[in-house]
């Protein structure tokens, strides 16, 4: 899975989830975008274990400029 954010506005720009439940998991990213919430809102959300969705907040901890 992969998430891209705008470093300045902290808005989420795009995401890909390829894996079990990916078709459902993507909606927590989409709804954060519809809410126009910056990514830290999603990063600090507590998701249920053991699910695939719980990987999204921890995934956001790894944000960094893309390796080129």
């Amino acid at each position, binding site marked *: *899975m992969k998430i891209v954010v705008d470093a300045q506005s902290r808005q989420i720009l795009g995401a890909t989830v390829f894996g079990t439940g990916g078709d459902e998991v993507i909606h927590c990213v989409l709804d954060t975008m519809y809410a126009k919430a910056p990514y830290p809102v999603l990063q600090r959300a507590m998701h249920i274990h*053991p699910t695939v969705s719980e990987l999204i907040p921890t995934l956001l*901890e790894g944000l960094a400029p893309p390796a080129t």
Partner: protein
Amino acid sequence: MADEHYDAIVIGTSQGGRLLPAELAKAGHKVALVERGQLGGVCVNRGCTPTKTMVASARLAYQARRAVEFGVRTGPVSVDLAAVRERKQAMVAGARQNFASRLTPDGPELIEGEAHFTGPKTVEIDLSDGGTRQVSAPAIVIDAGTRPRPLELAGAGDVTVLDSTSIMELDEVPEHLIVLGGGYIGLEFGQMFRRFGSEVTIIEMGSRLVQREDTEISSAVQELLINEGITLRLNARCLRVSGDAGSIIAHVDCEQDAPSIEGSHLLLAVGRQPNTDDLGLDAAGVSRDDRGYIVVNDQLETNVPGIWALGDCNGRGAFTHTAYNDFEIVASNLLEGTSRRISDRISAYALFIDPPLARRPHRNGGTGSRAPDPGRETAHETRGKSDRKRRDERIDEDCR
């Protein structure tokens, strides 16, 4: 025959076209709903409903073969494709029946036939059971959908070429299915038939599968399919086909591997095209783009005031969810006086191989009104592996 006058005419009964006429009728309008084929459009008859029903059968076969890894004993696993097809047909019939049951006497009037414009407010319908009707309305909504795009391929007239519709009617598992096209439709059917027990070769002229995706995603998808035993022929352009029943040879232009691939069946999966050529759009003055899609503005109205286009035929989305959103926009704007727009939606889609690939695209098109200027944006990325262990723990419980 004199014009029969309506408040609104809707052409096509897909996800947008099935709901809008009901909403308009509920609001007191006299509505004609015209359908030339089966009620429900592609989604119900030839798209989501049947394909996802068959994907579920394929997934179950895949899981049953792996049962021993989970401590479950099964016998030898084989697939009865005729029974898969029957189950699929029952699901489709149920979905169509569900649609038909909503056409109540006080709802829209269903007219079965093929519609074409004779002017900006007038439509002639060639009725399915003979004869014609002339109807007119101040508001006309086109929801004509798309169909598989044929490919002009030398020799295609000499062999049976399956498309995404006809492949679902097979009653025996192909020995070796050749799939032309490494896009979404080709991958869903390729994996499905591999799991049904076919040998599968996917021929793609580009250097990778699902080329709209990021390269590392294409790689992950390719790895998954190869691990399931599918043969990929990338950078291979199919030049012609030859053979006869039971033996089809695809001749490819490539720099490595064999220049011909022999299989028992051939699926053409090179995209879809809009059903806009038979609508008489020129008589109404409705503009199309160079690929045949009807051009609409941000509120789905065409260049002709009073004519709207919903769903796949407007080229603003190729999915049931975009068609449904189109319906919501037009219904809300017409009936509630809102000003909802296409650009308010955030595009997203999924590829239903197993496990699925879901994406909110970034940079490449359809990004909506809130996307920052790519030149000014400083993108930060994060990526991680979807948890394999979690997948294995859950694999028996998330079958849909």
